């Protein structure tokens, strides 16, 4: 039996075309700001930041002759909230097959929220060497920072309530490019909690 009004309405704020345009614009901004791509490297934070990073690499390739080296990082081991196996599943691999020393690193993630993930990523990156500079690109900045961290390139600034969830879905992982705001679970009518299976792949 299905109770129709139990599904809390989600609001799509960025569709596939929007995601594409945002990434194309960020690529232009990166090239402009760095006056080319000399000594640039792209590293995506798993999971989803890595896919965005690969797409950015592709977008930049359209503008410049050279290819920007790509890497992916799992920052689970650097988190300040390592806990329960529950949703943390398996630690994914970190692959940065080039030297970060002296490079300008473009760090890529899907959602910038409290800033703690980026803090962990910065720590992780420093263990790989001494980059000349690190810049941050995110698809969505939803505010509510808890640390003094800001993004250099933002796909979309998204004012949210702290209790809302921002859900990013990407072709590579979810079959569709889309950013949506989900209302807080408590906003749904009583007894209308989503079953675990219906929980979105990632809320940030």
């Amino acid at each position, binding site marked *: 039996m299905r109770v129709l009004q139990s599904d809390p309405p989600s609001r799509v704020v960025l569709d596939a075309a929007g995601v594409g345009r945002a990434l194309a614009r960020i690529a232009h901004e990166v090239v402009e700001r760095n006056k080319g791509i000399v000594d640039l490297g792209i590293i995506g934070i798993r999971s989803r930041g890595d896919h965005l990073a690969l797409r950015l690499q592709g977008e930049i390739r359209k503008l410049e002759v050279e290819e920007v080296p790509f890497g992916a990082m*799992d920052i689970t*081991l*650097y*988190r*300040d*909230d*390592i*806990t*329960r*196996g*529950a*949703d*943390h*599943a*398996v*630690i*994914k*691999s*970190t*692959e940065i097959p080039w030297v970060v020393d002296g490079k300008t690193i473009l760090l890529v993630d899907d*959602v910038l*929220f*409290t*800033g*703690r*993930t980026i803090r962990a990523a910065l*720590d*992780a990156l420093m*263990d*790989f*060497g001494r980059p000349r500079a690190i810049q941050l690109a995110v698809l969505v900045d939803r505010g509510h920072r*808890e640390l003094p961290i800001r993004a250099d390139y933002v796909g979309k600034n998204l004012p949210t309530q702290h209790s809302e*969830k921002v859900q990013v879905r990407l072709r590579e992982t979810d079959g569709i490019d889309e950013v949506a705001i989900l209302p807080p*679970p408590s906003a749904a009518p009583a007894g209308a909690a989503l079953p675990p299976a219906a929980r979105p792949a*990632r*809320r*940030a």
Partner: protein
Amino acid sequence: MFERRHLLGLEGVSAEEITFLLDSAESFKEVSEREIKKVPTLRGRTVVNLFYESSTRTRTSFEIAAKRLSADTINLSASASSASKGETLTDTARNLAAMRPDAIVVRHPSAGAPHLLARHVDCPIINAGDGAHEHPTQALLDLLTIRSHKGQIAGLTVAIVGDLLHSRVARSNLFGLRTMGARVRFVGPPTLVPPQFADLGAELVNDLHEGLRDADVIMMLRIQRERMNGRYFSSLDEYSRLYCLSVDAVAKARRDVIILHPGPMNRGVEISSTVADGPYSVIMDQVTNGVAVRMAALYVLVGRRRGIEADDGEHSTRDAGTAGGRTAGAAALPLRRAAAAE
């Protein structure tokens, strides 16, 4: 997913749990290849290595694993501990527990000792070898080595050769390999391959060449000279004539066979030097994988005990319930299994 509180053995551990540990270990391998071989994951945690039997490889491996995760490690050996002054294992454990370690890695000559500890202390216990019972991290590193060379474990034929009677490595591997869907052959003289192993799902073979036929994996066991006093075979010489893994014997196995040995090797007794150093040998991979597997075990058992709210809301709704629930729900393996295996 691995929700257990302790890692006491592989008996009864599901294929999903084993796969989870192996997948995690796979990712930890990369940390050991970095220039800075350390991640801050277990900063501020304390891991006690409590070894009542001598060990070089396993203890070093656990210590390196803990240190690469930034945990503090303390090594206690039987000769230096108050066991030599007559303290019981339980009392030692209670005293250690009072110092609030975050995990105790224990090796003990008696089967079931880690299980006993698990009932008396409130931190995770990792079995690093208990008598002739289990040695789960060794089996996991063997499984990881096999999986990375063969792609998968299911469907493989694994011949385990030598002193099966006294081998905790063989028992843990038998449980793990069977769970993952491999065929397991126990190969050795009748005195060292008791028929009861058949009940646990092993095929028993006494002839070496027959036992190695079409094997995908050969796992050699050390002849534990300290436990042999002429009761199991008449001489080492005779044993090695019949069971030493020579080039000829390897030829009976599949062409792409890999050869494992948990160490320390008795060259010329159970394995010839030519084979040990030959192209099929993955013995050094085992040692490398050992650190990764132990990092995974420590991460899974120790790392997730702290319950601070996740930053991006991924887990926040479930945080409150998990920490306490796991502790209460996770049960140690019953001790009788340890007794049965002896």
